């Protein structure tokens, strides 16, 4: 059997070395994810009802599987349900009530495709879908670990991702720019920002142990692991210490990927003028000198003067100017080649055999030689291999992520692990068919969105009374016999509260906003002065993607609703339910401020009649009017003198608000 990338490897431009001696058994190569795509055609149906149900080929694959199990798809969802579903899905925001009514009234055949198209064209779409990518690459704006130093220019990468998604940049190009932007065009700022990809991971800085080999290895580990889990969907990180226990990934494979970075070094490009730098140095030196003399006065044992001195020192430290902005990117410095060795137990103090660069062997013919120790533009070479049309993993992994973001669960439910211990695809043919479409459409996402969103599968209802046979045969709804409802993500929830209350500041892009957080939490970080709240309160109401992402201090609202900790690539959001969420919503300053704003808005827009106020509040928050029970309860409450703002807060606590059906 010819491995998928055999041709690519054979035609590799670089000098072939000696045979590597790596061989793989047929069983190792047989794993589905390493196989070339099967190029399936979509199933066809004879019965008229089936043919009507199939609107895009996606439906044909889904229906074939349901039929095989003797199941049938759910009836179509109502337009009211659909518009809320697709608004959150594509923009992460609730639909404005007027849009809902217009859509519900619109009986034309193309109302749905028009809506989908309009949302795909919206800038909010790019903001929402950029967040999915930022999760995968564990984007944050500080180092993490003890000192958690801020990365003041990291927002440029976030804006690069949003721009790329907005213009539907081909995914292969998107990946190449991030892996090798600096090699593609070192004079182009956009490319340098993209290559900042390699600087996104957490960075451990210790005051104590400074071991250069150890630190270098930590950095390479971060660079390597995200390529495995994020781009290739294989847990290559497991092979850092030993051959992978379950997948045919050798320890050498791991270090051969690292070897693509043997001449890669961090590059910090100052974004300030020489004058500003001189000024900064002068100011810093003066304060450091004062600090030094203050510290010298500190007694190493408890002494009466110490407390005062410590206070003075802390005040002086706060005067230190923040670091000047630098663009964090990477560059190749061929003169500074650092050989990559296989490390026993992943320990930099136990270097073994030296290795050259090469992609993972199971996707290459047996004995595939290394590509060399040093080649021109090594990361671009790796990127080209990853984004080759024939690479069996890359396209599958990405279309699976897209599917997951529409349906909550991927066709492979372990999106960062396509290996043997990951889950097997629920619809392997569909996965391959989508991957083929993705590649054929030039690696663009929007054609894929259309195929999915225009399908009957996507437009199914969430049926409450699940048919018994469906619950028995497929309790997890893997086969999609109904639409899987989902809880809003943390960012969607915060943004929805802003949008509903009318306070959302739609400003796009630019430096991230540091918003107020409870002082008790700020006090806990290494240097509380880092959390310098933005002076303009209007900025606090921007979308969550523009809120400063500090690894050691997340917004409590986002944290309790499962925003990831940004230490590791986050393949999929959790949907936990716990008491702190309730406390946050009930008593948190943000939710109460939003409830007051919603009450003001409702009073302003609906006038003094409470029935109209109640109706307006439900429509703003839920895209529907209240049902009889809800209306009666709300009116009675307000008639008894209950505050409108409390009623508004109750709306935010409704399960219906937290979910998209």
């Amino acid at each position: 059997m010819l491995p998928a990338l055999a041709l690519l490897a054979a035609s590799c431009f670089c000098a072939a070395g000696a045979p590597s001696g790596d061989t793989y058994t047929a069983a190792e190569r047989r794993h589905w994810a390493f196989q070339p795509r099967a190029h399936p055609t979509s199933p066809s149906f004879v019965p008229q009802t089936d043919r009507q149900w199939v609107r895009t080929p996606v439906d044909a694959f889904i229906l074939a599987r349901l039929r095989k199990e003797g199941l049938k798809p759910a009836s179509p969802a109502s337009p009211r349900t659909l518009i809320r579903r697709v608004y959150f899905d594509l923009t992460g925001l609730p639909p404005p009530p007027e849009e809902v009514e217009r859509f519900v009234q619109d009986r034309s055949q193309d109302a749905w495709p028009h809506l989908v198209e309009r949302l795909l064209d919206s800038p909010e779409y790019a903001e929402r879908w950029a967040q999915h990518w930022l999760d995968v690459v564990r984007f944050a704006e500080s180092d993490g670990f003890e000192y958690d130093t801020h990365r003041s220019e990291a927002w440029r990468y976030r804006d690069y991702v949003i721009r790329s998604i907005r213009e539907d940049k081909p995914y292969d190009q998107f990946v190449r720019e991030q892996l090798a932007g600096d090699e593609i065009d070192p004079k182009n700022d956009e490319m340098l920002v993209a290559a900042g990809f390699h600087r996104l991971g957490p960075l451990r800085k210790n005051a104590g142990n400074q071991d250069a080999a150890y630190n270098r290895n930590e950095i390479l580990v971060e660079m390597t692991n995200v390529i495995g889990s994020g781009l290739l969907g294989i847990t290559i990180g497991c092979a850092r210490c030993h051959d992978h226990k379950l997948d045919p990934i050798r320890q050498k494979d791991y270090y051969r990927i690292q070897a693509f970075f043997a001449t890669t070094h961090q590059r910090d490009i100052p974004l300030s003028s020489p004058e500003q730098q001189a000024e900064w140095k002068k100011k810093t030196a003066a304060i450091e000198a004062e600090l030094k003399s203050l510290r010298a006065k500190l007694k190493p044992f408890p002494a009466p003067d110490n407390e005062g001195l410590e206070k003075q020192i802390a005040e002086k430290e706060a005067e230190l100017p923040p670091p000047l902005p630098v663009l964090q990117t990477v560059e190749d410095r061929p003169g500074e080649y650092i050989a990559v060795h296989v490390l026993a137990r992943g320990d930099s103090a136990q270097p073994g055999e030296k290795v050259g660069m090469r992609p993972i062997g199971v996707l290459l013919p047996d004995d595939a030689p290394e590509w060399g120790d040093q080649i021109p533009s090594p990361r671009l070479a790796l990127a080209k291999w990853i984004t080759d049309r024939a690479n069996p993993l890359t396209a599958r992994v990405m279309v699976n992520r897209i599917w997951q973001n529409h349906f909550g669960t991927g066709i492979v439910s372990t999106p960062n692990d396509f290996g043997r211990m990951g889950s097997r695809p629920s619809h392997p043919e569909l996965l391959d068919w989508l991957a083929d479409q993705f590649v054929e459409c030039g690696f663009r996402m929007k054609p894929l969105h259309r195929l999915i969103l225009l399908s009957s599968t996507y437009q199914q209802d969430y049926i409450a009374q699940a048919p018994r046979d469906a619950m028995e045969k497929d309790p997890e709804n893997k086969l999609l016999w109904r639409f899987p409802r989902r809880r809003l993500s943390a960012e969607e929830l915060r943004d929805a509260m802003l949008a509903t209350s009318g306070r959302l500041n739609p400003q796009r892009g630019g430096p991230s906003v540091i918003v107020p957080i409870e002082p008790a939490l700020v006090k806990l970080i290494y240097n509380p002065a880092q959390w310098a709240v933005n002076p303009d309160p209007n900025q606090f109401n921007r979308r969550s993607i523009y809120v400063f992402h500090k690894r050691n201090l997340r917004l409590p609202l986002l944290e309790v609703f499962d925003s990831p900790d940004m230490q590791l690539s986050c393949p999929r959001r959790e949907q936990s339910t716990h008491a702190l969420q309730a406390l946050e919503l009930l008593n948190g300053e943000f939710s109460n401020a939003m409830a007051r704003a919603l009450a003001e808005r409702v009073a302003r827009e609906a006038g003094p009649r409470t029935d109209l106020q109640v109706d307006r509040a439900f429509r703003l928050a839920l895209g529907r009017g209240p049902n009889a029970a809800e209306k009666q309860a709300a009116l009675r409450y307000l008639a008894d003198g209950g505050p409108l703002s409390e009623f508004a807060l109750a709306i935010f606590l409704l399960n219906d608000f937290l979910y998209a059906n």
Partner: protein
Amino acid sequence: MRPSLETDIYRRTFLRQGLSGLGLFALNSLLGQRLNAATTGVVNPLHHPAKAKRVIFLYQAGGPSHLETFDFKPKLAQMNGQPMPESMTKGQQIAQLQGRPLTCFGPQHSFRRFGKSGQEMCELFPHIGSVADDICIIRSMWTEQINHDPAHTLMNTGSIITGRPSMGSWVVYGLGAETDSLPGFVVLASAGKGGQMQPIAARQWSAGILPSRFQGVKFNSIGNPVLHIETPAGLSSATQRDSIESVNALNRLEHRALGDNEILTRVAQYEMAFRMQSSVPDLVDMRKEPQSILDLYGAQPGDGSFASNCLLARRLAERGVRFIQLYHRDWDHHSGVKSNVAIKARETDQATAALLTDLKQRGMLDDTLVVWGGEFGRTPMSQGGDGRDHHIRGFSFLVAGGGIKGGISYGSTDELGYAAEDNPVAVPDFHATMLHLLGIDHKRLTVKFQGLDARLTGIAGEVVTGILA
């Protein structure tokens, strides 16, 4: 919707006067099934009978010197000022002393024997000494990580890989909680005077790859213990209860319509949140503690001290919290170890002993495992003439209560206090033993991650049978 249900909703939704005579619990029973946020864990039934029901971990962060606390090394005193034998230190990882001359630095305080068992402890700890017969001193702990953050991570999660669950999360995941008014895993932190302040990141009590409801909930030691536990100004508790009941009634309706059990979980969690608003203030209301108890601990309620936190820990334990972790910081004595350890001893000695005494007099020590220790120890070599550097090869832990044999010392370091020699106890061994006492086989407490069964003890861990009662 059925008319009866509609009437039901009408009666209680947004309807304050109708609720005035009706407590929340009565309401719940009216609604039928009582939703219990106190859950059973995945280890059900237990793998074997448990000796301990809960854990109180008094975490001494920064790395306490074993040589000035619980590991007496007369030979080190004799060799004070002389070079460390090279055979001992060659090739070993040390933090800030790397490449410097290594000089023996004798114990800076005297030791004496305490209790009937005659356990040897530093005389800075007379209170702990007074309960020496209830305590087992493990003198042979060792770890793999020499810097604070990774060493904390290893101690808490059994791994330095980020994203692994902390031990408290594992325990609550395994056993569930015995309360539906408080979280099952609570963290408290205090800072003392002296030494360097190392921040403790929330990662240390993260649920990692476990569902987030298992994460540690950090209570603040000063001010409101829980973020947003207080009703916003101008809003009465009754109004809020009214809102919650209304919301939950509507959420239950939605559950009827949609049949999604996660909605019931949410209803239960809203109820727990509401109960926490009274249970947490009640928890921290020390007015009900007699002066004798406050004096026993040396606690001044509300001061955020280790002593106050120890008292809080007992109150949390009484209320059914499963895993209580107290962080006390500032044990990082790179300099001035003599005076600084004395400060730390004053901050922790009395309260630690008081906690054991208090638990014992309430009959709770038998089923509460109490642990005292940090992320690593400190070098027998001096740093800068009067300090000690980080040290991983040997350090001490105190364990007491729930199934531990009291009045014994277990394991030992070599004669200079450098490396664990007899019966070394690795971090996963400690974890395995803790889980064993809780009725859990550490090899069978697992969660699927990347296709593998992840566990607290990784691929290691041996139960330390020598310390079991």
